[in-house]
């Protein structure tokens, strides 16, 4: 293991305070719909210029870690993922909160996030250079299939009809095409409207599709937002710890999945939680409970999405390819500090990078007390605030958060309208998750598809381009498995039943 001296360098009082400040501010910012980890890191970058490079990196890493975890609060308590990587947290987190177990869900999310963060940081510490090669093995076609895999996964996971999920995913992909085209720069689907030229902003759409329907339903009845249990139950930490211990294998598997998927630039964060959730549901003995408030579902997603922090840093630090938008901001800050990324960073510039990695461990450990305390207050606030205060506060937060992304009032209008569309679609069984993921993965899918199409058409090997590469074939196999798994499972169960003499 790389030098213990770097661990001591990370544990200076200044670094501990910076990590604590970073985790607290990141968690608070991440929990507010509309405020992203990217924005939090970007705003604080100028402050870091006067700091030691390793301290600056620790602060930015801590904010990033806290923000990814903070996204779970709104996912669990408001059914609105604070960050795209927390989409799958809503599947079981919100049902748990509805059943009066929101405090337990938050403690579980905290434990899972810490576990995932530690696993991701361990991979970053020990295996960064060889794992970075994975990112290079993925070409445009693989990214296209990966995006399709994410969409088929979420369609299959959406409650109800697979076809409705696929239609929703297609709708999201079409929404992603609105505005200036990724490759040719043509203006598409604006129908003469200047406002749409900039396209539909992903986080605004996410807020609209998830949060506005919750608000619409919240004002419609006098019922409480969440079931309230007035008995004092503390953090429910030990209870959560026991549940996490029982699901330790699932937790570790989800963390490893999160790290490995997180290595893939761009797509990682959004897909990691879904893949981990899907795998946890497949392998769980309580798979039928998933989607109805299963604690393992919350843990799978939260461990995976926090593992993407460490995973995302692998291509950022080794190859100079940012894994996620916050990584891109951190990469920019690194360059300003005069640090050149690359494999040599782990040998030549070891002191900075290893101090940073140990700082990431520190921030992840700090997330446990910070996350539990903030989570408890967030939960208490949501269940005790009267509806007449909760609705306008959340609505105001969605509006100001959406405006802040591109300083655009039009984005707020689009957010509200998409929310109404999402509410209507939801009533007829079309879940918002595939639509949002389609919108998020649209640009990756299109770039991969168009590049592969162009190369394939030029070489006269279109089919080979899409279906002839080994990694593509593996992903296609996963796509087919995710689509037809219920049928395969049903067949397997019925044949096993016949063999055991049930016929």
């Amino acid at each position, binding site marked *: 293991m790389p030098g213990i001296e770097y661990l001591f360098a990370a544990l200076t009082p200044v670094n501990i305070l910076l990590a604590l400040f970073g985790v607290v501010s990141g968690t608070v910012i991440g929990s507010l719909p509309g405020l992203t980890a990217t*924005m939090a890191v970007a*705003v604080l970058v100028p402050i870091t210029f006067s700091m030691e490079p390793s301290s600056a990196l620790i602060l930015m890493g801590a904010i990033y870690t806290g923000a990814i975890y903070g996204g779970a609060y709104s996912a669990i308590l408001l059914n609105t993922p604070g960050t795209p990587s927390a989409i799958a947290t809503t599947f079981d987190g919100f049902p748990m909160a509805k059943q009066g177990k929101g405090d337990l869900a938050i403690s579980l999310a905290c434990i899972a996030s810490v576990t995932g963060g530690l696993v991701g940081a361990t991979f970053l510490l020990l295996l960064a250079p060889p794992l970075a090669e994975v990112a290079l093995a993925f070409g445009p076609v693989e990214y296209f299939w990966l995006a399709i895999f994410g969409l088929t996964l979420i369609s299959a996971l959406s409650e109800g*009809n697979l*076809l*409705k999920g*696929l*239609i929703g995913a*297609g*709708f999201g*992909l*079409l929404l992603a*095409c609105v505005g200036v*085209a990724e*490759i*040719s720069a*043509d203006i*598409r*689907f604006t*129908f003469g409207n200047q406002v749409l030229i900039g396209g539909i902003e992903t986080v605004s759409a996410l807020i609209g599709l998830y949060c*506005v329907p919750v*608000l*619409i*339903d*919240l*004002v*419609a*009845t*006098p019922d409480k937002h969440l079931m309230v249990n007035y008995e004092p139950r503390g953090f429910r930490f030990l209870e959560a710890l026991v549940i996490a211990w029982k699901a330790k294998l699932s937790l570790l598997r989800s963390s490893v999945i999160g790290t490995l998927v997180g290595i893939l630039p761009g797509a990682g964060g959004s897909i990691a939680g879904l893949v981990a959730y899907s795998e946890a549901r497949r392998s769980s003995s309580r798979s039928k409970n998933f989607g109805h408030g299963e604690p393992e579902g919350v843990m799978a997603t939260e461990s995976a999405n926090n593992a993407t922090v460490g995973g995302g840093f692998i291509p950022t630090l080794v190859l100079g390819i940012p894994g996620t938008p916050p990584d891109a901001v951190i990469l920019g800050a690194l360059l300003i500090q005069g640090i050149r990324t690359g494999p040599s960073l782990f040998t030549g510039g070891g002191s900075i990078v290893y101090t940073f990695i140990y700082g990431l461990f520190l921030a992840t450990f700090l997330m446990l007390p910070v996350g539990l305390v903030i989570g408890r207050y967030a939960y208490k606030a949501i269940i005790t605030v*009267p*509806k*007449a*205060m*909760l*609705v*306008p*506060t959340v*609505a*105001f*937060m969605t*509006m*100001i958060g959406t*405006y*802040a992304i591109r*300083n655009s*009032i039009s984005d*707020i*209008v689009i957010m*509200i309208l998409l*929310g*109404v569309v999402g509410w209507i*679609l939801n*009533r*007829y*069984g*079309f879940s918002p998750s595939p639509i949002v993921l389609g919108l998020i993965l649209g640009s990756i*899918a*299109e770039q991969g*598809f*168009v590049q592969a*199409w162009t190369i394939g058409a030029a070489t006269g090997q279109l089919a080979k381009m899409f279906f002839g590469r080994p990694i593509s074939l593996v992903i296609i196999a996963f796509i087919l498995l995710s689509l037809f798994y219920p049928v395969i499972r049903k067949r397997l169960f019925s044949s096993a039943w016949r063999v055991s003499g049930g016929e």
Partner: protein
Amino acid sequence: MVNNQSVSQGRDTGGMVMACLFIMMAVIALWDTTNMMDSDSFVFPRAIAIAIILFSLALIVWNLIKPVTEKKETVADASTLRRTALVAVMLASCALMPWLGFLLSGFATFVLLMLVAMYDKWTSKKVIIYPLIAAAVVAGFYTLFSKLLLVPLPVGLLFE
């Protein structure tokens, strides 16, 4: 206004209507791609639009051929007026924002939404405290975004 909502029984008629709307949307998208000259621009949206049409048709056919299942009718009291008012207030706030500025329109939106979401009786204490809390929340968020995060929130044409 309180009305009764009910989930339709038997066939998923609503789902089929939505599928028809998705087909219409995809056809419009396909028509719009005919104006694009560069194949890089239209190849992906066309593929997606065709996929939407196929999935929507499959959903309609599946709904028509599958056996009709008896669904439990759920009846819930829900106010359509309040739902509509929520959306209308938020949209009106956007319309007024360039003139009134974010602070004033935000406060007005907050107070109006408070009225929309209020089911309890207004007491004299609430009449005094709630608007004060509203002012504090709006001012707090305004300060956070405009001063700390340096987001240029609209000041309002009336105050420039």
